[in-house]
């Protein structure tokens, strides 16, 4: 059982200035920005906001015309009960976007290495050497789960590596929409790798929506074709251990990642590398090597810092409350606890 803390020693700086010179190990992952869509991020934001405003004006009049006409009460456009949560959402999104923008302008950011991601190329390389196929499972849920989307984003990076080495990549899917998206991703990756003929539609196919029907088929395939590398990235449930044990039985290198906390123990126990929760979402940004996407990781870290500060502050106030509880007010009611300022104001939730 290898775990990424192992490789924490071999650290590596990925900075924007480094990008041009190109660190060897990261360079192969780099995914150049071929199209600058709408120029800068701020421009994008403005365009999007304008689009949303247009939509906002058009949609209610179309959809809810009846309800609006019926109601005698004035329409409340903003739920004031959710103000605190709206501000929090805005703050987190803004931090992430600002970091993205700073990264794009060339501010260097350090990103720690994630062993599972560094091992991806090695896994693809090993499959090439052994002349065996690669298996990629983007989870068993539909594309309405963000885990699946994250898995597909990693798929495009893996497919690009596989296309460069010309190693067959099998992507069985459990949902039809995921199959469509996976085909788009692999086709694009093949094109980006300069091998459009690498893309073979038959290798990305739908099996069945049923969890264990899908697993039965994938495990049968693994037994027969003996893939050298298996990637399980997406949303998984009970079948996680099933897939990982089947891969282990055929001796494949296995890299797994999921945000389903209940399944992480099984992947950790049975796979060579595991991306824990958030690392799955960071993976595609990391693999893309784009400055803007790496900047987002920094933005996420500010969110975590905020979480740590809130927890420490809240715990201190709660402890204070516990040691010397507040008295009663003039009407004889208990005064609110001090920690309520954090729990019920800042973290009110929606």
């Amino acid at each position, binding site marked *: 059982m290898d775990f990424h803390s192992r490789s924490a020693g071999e650290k590596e700086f990925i900075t924007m200035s480094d990008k041009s010179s190109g660190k060897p190990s990261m360079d192969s992952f780099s995914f150049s920005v071929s199209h600058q869509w709408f120029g800068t991020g701020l421009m994008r934001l403005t365009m999007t906001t304008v689009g*949303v405003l247009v939509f906002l004006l058009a949609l209610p009049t179309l959809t809810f015309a009846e309800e609006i006409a019926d109601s005698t009460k004035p329409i409340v456009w903003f739920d004031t009960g*959710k103000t605190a949560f709206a501000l929090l959402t805005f703050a987190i999104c803004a931090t992430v976007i600002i970091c993205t923008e700073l990264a794009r302008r060339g501010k260097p950011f350090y990103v720690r290495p994630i062993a599972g991601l560094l091992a991806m190329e090695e896994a693809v390389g090993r499959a090439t050497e052994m002349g065996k196929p690669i298996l990629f499972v983007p989870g068993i849920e539909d594309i309405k789960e963000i885990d699946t989307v994250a898995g597909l984003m990693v798929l495009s990076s893996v497919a690009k590596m596989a296309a460069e080495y010309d190693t067959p990549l099998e992507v069985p899917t459990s949902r039809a929409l995921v199959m469509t998206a996976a085909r788009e991703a692999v086709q694009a990756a093949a094109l980006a790798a300069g091998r459009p003929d690498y893309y073979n539609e038959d290798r990305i196919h739908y099996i069945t929506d049923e969890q264990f029907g899908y697993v039965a088929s994938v495990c049968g395939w693994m037994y027969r074709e003996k893939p050298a590398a298996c990637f399980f990235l997406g949303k998984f449930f009970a079948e996680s251990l099933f897939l990982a044990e089947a891969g282990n039985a055929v001796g494949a290198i296995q890299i797994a990642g999921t945000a389903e906390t209940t399944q992480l123990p099984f992947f950790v126990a049975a796979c060579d590398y595991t991306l824990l929760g958030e690392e799955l979402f*960071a993976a595609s940004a990391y693999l893309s090597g784009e400055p803007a996407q790496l900047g987002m990781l920094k933005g996420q870290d500010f969110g975590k810092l905020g979480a740590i500060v809130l927890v420490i502050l809240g715990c201190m106030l709660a402890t204070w409350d516990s040691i010397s509880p507040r008295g009663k007010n003039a009407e004889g009611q208990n005064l609110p606890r001090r920690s309520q300022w954090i729990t019920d104001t800042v973290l009110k939730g929606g």
Partner: protein
Amino acid sequence: MSKTVPVLIASIVGCLMIVAYFSPPLLPARQMAEDWFTIVATIAIFLGGANLCLHHLKKISDREAGWGFSAVTLISFAITIAVGLLKIGVVPESEQQIKLAWSGPFQQEGSGFWWIYQYLFSPIVSTMFALLAFYVASAAFRAFRAKNLEAILLLITALIVLVGQTRDREITSLFLPPPAEGTPPYVPIADLTEFIRKTFVTAGQRAIMIGIALGVVATSLRILLGLDRSYLGGDE
């Protein structure tokens, strides 16, 4: 153009979903989006079915190894669809329904579709599920080895919880002085299991969930800002 429009669609509907959450008149739009997704996914499943047929038909026509099994798949697929869509064996359940050939629930007990579910689908699926008991054992044997500190922690907690789960936990109270008359013996490992569950398991999951939430925010923003378009494929 082929890519700008989809990215715009994604950005607009995505932002709308966020704004709708805070705006009462738009709140139904979120519900509607979920509903619409179900319909889109349902229509897409027919594409999946078509793909399944093509995949296996190709195997059969190429006489690939194991093409006979592809034939079995196709036959069972066709039979299930026919039995289910034609509601074979379904009878109307009330007087007013008798006139209608298509009435009655499609999964009615005793119907053909029910038989397929009960005697083909459910046994295979639940047996696949039951195989996990074997894999749990083999994974534990292989992976829980004291290679480093992390693995030692993993294995020791697993052992503690495994002992604490069944009545065998009572052996741990043998090492304690006998309890006073009439009181149940104190079982330290049961308390320890409960403590681990309430503290470390909760804390570990909480931290992972906090991280995931931020990861989701960043991933969503990547989509809404059009930074990552891999799911939309390449430009032709």
